[in-house]
């Protein structure tokens, strides 16, 4: 195949991908419009499960957006060349995913047309309000960082910018964890381990996303990843996966032993129906054990295996978030300690039912679509392909 043919094929494929992305985004926007018109009655959310599928997608995107920057940080802050070559791609991915996640969060609001109110009326005690700053700050910092890397004259500043991004994203993911950690009244949340847990999760999920995108780009250009670099990255991913398992274990153990929330833990881990299944099969087996096997087993660990492992980590992260966010709300609040609720019209003492509806899922995937679209176009327009000498 000559260069001309390849060029033509490339363009065709590019437009196909863009078209695909646009379709998904359009579906998401349509779903959001539908939700706005009819109200949240067309979602599975209720007065007990107040955050649903859109939040699973949005939190995945936002947490990963911070974690994906890890690659850039290792490059800039610690001066490792192979990571430096990947820093621009990691910056682009971060902005893309942040944009996707924030759009989903915004469109899920009961009054999305009032986001301007959120920007003009800030309650300084609200973690949510802090996050508005943290997110927009991150976009700004990463944009500057990208600029210092891509513009030759700015190169000397790149290390400083990298450092700022590095610090900022720590605070940002802490902020995301705090959204839940401050909810003292809910058994699933209100736990100081949540911010560090979210930080380590962001490392794992972000790196997994990075590996997937990088594989796709190398595949597109019919290139193979330098084996030494593959080994480094996959080992890093393995360590992050182990780190997440460790913190998730601590989170559940503190709930059981210290907070004495055994009823809740029993629900989430043993007899809560879909939630234990998703936790053990989805997060633990498919999302953690299998990827570790693919990475570390002596016969495995090729680029393909690592790609598969990364995809599984992403699937596992969705299972985890579903259990954490929705399972966490489905379990009733403990309002009357020492009493059992015999009857209530408002679901006190009862496990809430939740089944995600199509519009809210489409809204969530629309967020993924936005991230995908920005990445695809960005990669095509500018030179983001990691090159190793």
């Amino acid at each position: 195949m000559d260069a001309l043919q390849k060029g033509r094929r490339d363009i065709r494929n590019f437009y196909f991908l863009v078209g695909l992305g646009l379709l998904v985004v359009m579906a998401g926007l349509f779903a959001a419009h539908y939700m706005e018109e009819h109200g949240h009655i067309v979602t599975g959310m209720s007065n007990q499960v107040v955050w649903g599928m859109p939040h699973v997608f949005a939190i995945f995107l936002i947490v990963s957006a911070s974690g994906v920057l890890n690659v850039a940080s290792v490059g800039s802050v610690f001066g490792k060349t192979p990571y430096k070559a990947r820093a621009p791609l990691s910056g682009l991915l971060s902005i893309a995913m942040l944009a996707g996640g924030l759009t989903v969060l915004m469109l899920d609001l009961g009054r999305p047309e009032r986001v301007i109110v959120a920007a003009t009326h800030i309650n300084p005690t609200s973690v949510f309000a802090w996050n508005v700053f943290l997110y927009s700050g991150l976009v700004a910092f990463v944009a500057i960082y990208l600029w210092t890397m891509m513009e030759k004259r700015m190169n000397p500043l790149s290390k400083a910018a990298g450092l700022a991004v590095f610090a900022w994203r720590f605070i940002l993911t802490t902020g995301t964890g705090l959204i839940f950690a401050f909810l003292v009244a809910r058994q699933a949340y209100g736990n100081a381990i949540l911010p560090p847990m979210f930080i380590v999760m962001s490392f794992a999920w972000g790196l997994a996303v990075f590996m997937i995108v990088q594989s796709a780009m190398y595949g597109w250009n019919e290139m193979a990843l330098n084996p030494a670099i593959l080994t480094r990255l996959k080992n890093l991913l393995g360590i992050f996966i182990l780190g997440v398992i460790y913190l998730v274990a601590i989170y559940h153990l503190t709930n059981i032993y210290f907070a004495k929330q055994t009823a809740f833990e029993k629900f989430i881990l043993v007899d809560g129906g879909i939630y234990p299944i998703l936790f053990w099969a989805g997060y633990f087996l498919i999302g953690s054990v299998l990827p570790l096997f693919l990475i570390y087993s002596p016969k495995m660990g090729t680029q393909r295996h690592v790609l598969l492992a990364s995809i599984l980590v992403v699937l596992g992260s969705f299972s985890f978030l579903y259990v954490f966010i929705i399972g966490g709300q489905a379990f009733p609040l403990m309002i009357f300690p020492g009493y059992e609720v015999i009857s209530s019209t408002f679901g006190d003492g009862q496990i809430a039912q939740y089944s995600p509806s199509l519009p809210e899922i489409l809204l969530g995937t629309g967020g993924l679509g936005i991230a995908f679209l920005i990445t695809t176009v960005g990669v095509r327009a500018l030179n983001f392909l990691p090159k190793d000498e």
Partner: protein
Amino acid sequence: MSEINRRDFLRGSAMMAGLAVAPGMMLYDLARANQPASSAVRWGMLIDTSQCEEGCDDCVKACNKENGLPGKTGPTDEQWIRKVELKNVKTGRVTSLPMMCQHCAEPPCVDVCPTGASFKRADGIVLVDRHLCIGCRYCMMACPYKARSFVHEPLHDQKPEVPRGKGTVESCTFCVQRIDRGKDITACAEACSKAGHKAILFGNLNDPNSEISKRLKEVASTQLRADLGVDPGLHYEGL
């Protein structure tokens, strides 16, 4: 007809302007009506669970009527007050009580609200300013008492004194529309005593001479989940 309307209207505007014209209205504290809510007052309730009858939901009905709520009980329907029946796990004793926004002194719903829509008035009433609420539902996540409802569907025919709307969050207001017009009793408390029970006592916790303060001094009462330190304005007797 127009004559009656006109008269009522005049009374209405006089009421709103804070002038007492009709003799009947002097019964109410019109001097306070139309004064800004002040921290000399902290509204609260004492619920005497021994007076609350199992199966009676007059308070709920009264609230729905007063505030124009649909009165449905699905998981997406708005409920500002609900009846809960409890059984003591150890002794098996059954208790019945009304449950609603506890009008916390340190309300978590206010701390977390990104826009400041969820706020506490000077007189301790916790409200949502629906002009500012963006419908993020973070306050519902934060409330330890599951007191809030999200309006899941478009509404029609709201009551003029109780504006409500789709996509915003709401909860018990202590019938703020009555209080601001000088009538210091909530619809639920009124209905409860009308039904011959005396389970809900509403009053000013900051006034040592109010009935509620005096009673609180006499009887043993608890706040729900007092361990959380949010200092609810509702006290429960017999729990």
